């Protein structure tokens, strides 16, 4: 099937979403939203891998994405457990309230 959508369209889209994720991490203060921005970045990286994988006709990128998803799941399990422990202690998720360590 002839199509005008090419590799670069996917790469540009992934790059944009990756940067939106970076902006989210660097500007937001809610722990959960920061974490979600990270997930968005990770997914953009996955999209890049799959796009390359498709256009290079090489499944290695797709296999890699398989493992990225596993890693993301493991990270989410531990990361949200940390969020839960924090909330039990300070009853807030605003990152600025976590400043016991600032002098």
């Amino acid at each position, binding site marked *: *099937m002839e199509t005008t959508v090419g590799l670069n369209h996917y790469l540009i889209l992934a790059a944009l979403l990756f940067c939106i994720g970076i902006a989210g991490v660097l500007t937001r203060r809610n722990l959960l939203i920061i974490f979600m921005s990270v997930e968005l970045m990770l997914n953009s990286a996955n999209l890049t891998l799959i796009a390359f994988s498709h256009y290079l006709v090489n499944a290695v990128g797709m296999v890699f994405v398989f493992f990225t*998803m*596993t890693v993301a*799941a*493991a990270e989410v*399990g531990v990361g*949200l*457990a940390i969020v*839960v422990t924090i909330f*039990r202690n300070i009853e807030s998720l605003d990152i600025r309230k976590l400043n016991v360590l600032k002098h």
Partner: protein
Amino acid sequence: MTPGDYLPILIVFGIVGGFAYFSLALTHLLGPRRYAPIKQDTYECGVDYVGDSRQRFSVKFYLVAVLFLIFDLEVVFMYPWAVNVRTLGWFGFVTMTIFLVLLTVGLLYEWKKGALEWE
């Protein structure tokens, strides 16, 4: 299989979403509007409600949810093995056994730690 073969799925998605919006919009347009305090209540008749829906969940639910996530991943790994199980033969069997032993030990651990109990 090219993406074109997945077009029916896309159409189904469209129909499903369209139907949902269509019905919502239709009730919104056609339904009579009579507002009264009793109408706005969660239950128009029967029991009075207690508290609100944003009740805090207990942390024990979290552990169950994490378990679900981890074993979800396990199944995700099993599927591509299962479709190739004949070709992979004993080699795949041994690989999968090791993989499953790892996660079974994890399950055993959770069980013994009481993470699966409702207390």
